[in-house]
């Protein structure tokens, strides 16, 4: 039992190794639970697939091409991948509320782990699970006639991870203040569902009523969805006669103050916001007794 060092926060300065241990053990348990819970895995994938099948098949003929070579299916599929990651990431928040209700959170809180490492562990676990689910969704790409390349998948990994980390932090921030699952579900309904629908998953957010455009463009999810979509659309084959390498048509991409966002811009917005949410989540989670 080490030094007598103290600080005002009540936490002795911890060795880096101990912080890692905290992150690892929390993530380990979430992964154990995930792999042991097939029902959750299936239900997490069922919803996006149902969305894709119903909306894709339903609208594909009505809407036609949104840009040369891009039909509705090709437009909505990357959005659905992003949505899968969003929903899965929010589950990390729900799992904290769940643990609080079923008592396991006490086991975590009395363990010699810093609150910061608990939050970080939750986020790591959630990011890995979300990424796995996003990647699994790629399996249906050939069915919906979306082309995949190795480079696309490689680029997709960091982007999906960044989205997942940011949204997990948001989920934990909300969960730190929530005492019941019902409360958390309510927040999901009134805040997060509209956020998802207004993030450009289903339709481009440029030629819409002004109020909707404003909400969409302050909505951080919009940029995550846009980044994923641009990665996909960049590798889709173009019809003959259209030169390759032209910028994303503004009818599909997100334009902020006249600037059409690129993948990097989008990712930076999500990452910046993620860092902010992460700090808030750690502070809020540490403050509860």
């Amino acid at each position: 039992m080490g030094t007598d060092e103290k600080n005002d926060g009540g936490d002795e300065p911890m060795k880096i190794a101990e912080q890692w241990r905290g992150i690892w053990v929390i993530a380990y348990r979430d992964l154990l639970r995930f792999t042991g819970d097939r029902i959750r895995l299936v239900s997490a994938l069922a919803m996006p697939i149902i969305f894709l099948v119903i909306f894709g098949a339903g609208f594909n003929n009505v809407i036609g091409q949104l840009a040369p070579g891009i039909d509705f299916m090709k437009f909505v599929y990357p959005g659905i991948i992003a949505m899968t990651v969003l929903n899965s990431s929010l589950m990390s928040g729900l799992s904290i509320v769940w643990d609080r209700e079923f008592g396991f959170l006490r086991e975590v809180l009395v363990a010699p782990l810093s609150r910061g490492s608990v939050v970080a562990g939750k986020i790591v676990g959630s990011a890995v699970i979300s990424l796995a689910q996003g990647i699994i969704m790629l399996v249906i790409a050939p069915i919906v006639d979306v082309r995949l390349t190795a480079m696309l998948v490689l680029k997709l990994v960091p982007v999906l991870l960044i989205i997942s980390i940011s949204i997990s932090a948001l989920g934990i921030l909300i969960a730190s203040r929530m005492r019941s699952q019902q409360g958390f579900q309510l927040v999901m309904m009134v805040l997060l569902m509209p956020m998802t629908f207004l993030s450009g998953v289903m339709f481009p957010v440029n030629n819409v009523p002004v109020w909707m455009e404003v909400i969409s463009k302050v909505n951080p999810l919009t940029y995550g969805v846009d980044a994923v979509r641009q990665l996909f659309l960049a590798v889709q084959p173009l019809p003959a006669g259209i030169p390759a390498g032209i910028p994303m048509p503004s009818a599909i991409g997100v334009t902020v103050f006249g600037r059409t966002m690129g993948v990097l811009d989008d990712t930076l917005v999500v990452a910046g916001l993620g860092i902010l949410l992460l700090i808030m989540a750690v502070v809020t989670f540490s403050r509860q007794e």
Partner: protein
Amino acid sequence: MNAIEINGIVKKFGQLVAVDGISFNVEKGEIFGFLGPNGAGKTTTINILCTLLLPTSGKASVNGFDVVRERRQVQRSIGLVFQDPTLDDYLTAEQNLRFHAYAYGVPRDVREKRMTELLELMELNDRRRSRVSTYSGGMKRRLEVARGLLHHPQVLFLDEPTLGLDPQTRRHIWDYITTLRKQENLSILMTTHYMDEAEYCDRIAVIDHGKIVALDTPTRLKDSVGGDVVSLQADNQEQALIELKESFKLSPVVQNGMVSFSVPRSDVFLPEFLRSFRSGIRSISVRRPTLDDVFLKLTGRAIREQEAGAWEQMRRMMGAMNR
């Protein structure tokens, strides 16, 4: 150095004073009991000692570490068995224990050996790979005890460790705990309202409305009641009461339709009493005082009478704590 030192701990939840200036020490290797109705402040005190709650004022240390300033060392020193389950039902017993071992940094070689040892002791070894959701209440509680001991804590907190369990399982758990205590020189702070369990304690603090009203060994607490407890049912209770007070200079109370009073030596008192008592007696019994009698004498109420109301108070407190 004492295992636990508490000095003037106060905890308020808004207007409610849950713990009102408690002070006591628990010696190394001692089993120390908290006795009192729900809502008396037992759980709150334990939560402060295990760093889940910050005290409003006062000082406390566990294993020599301050519970506010040296939380991490306190957390490493203690094991906990709560009255509410804190296991992950979706994991197996083994996985629950491993999580705990990782979280407390138990080295690998110690971990597996200790896990098997404790699972065998708790008679759960053949079910170690089953999900906890398939366990009975008694098995879960035994698993919690095993987990609380996994990282070789110096101080064990048992908050109603056997609440809602059948007598046989309770007996079992107590056998384990007393064995382990001898093996590992554990100090134990426990709360209970099973009177027979309180008898395992070396010393007991009787706590009521957030204050300690008595603190002594179970034997001396019972002696403080004043010898043996005599209960009788008379043909005419009123008349019997008056006669007991006037002719025998006793202070009888009526409890559950029985008139009861205590005398230093019932073997000397009774023959003489039966000869000279003039009211008709329907039944009479003598027993050694229990801790129930101690509580009754100290607070004027039986522990159990209070329960319903106290439960509500407790729930409100938990609500306030969570908010």
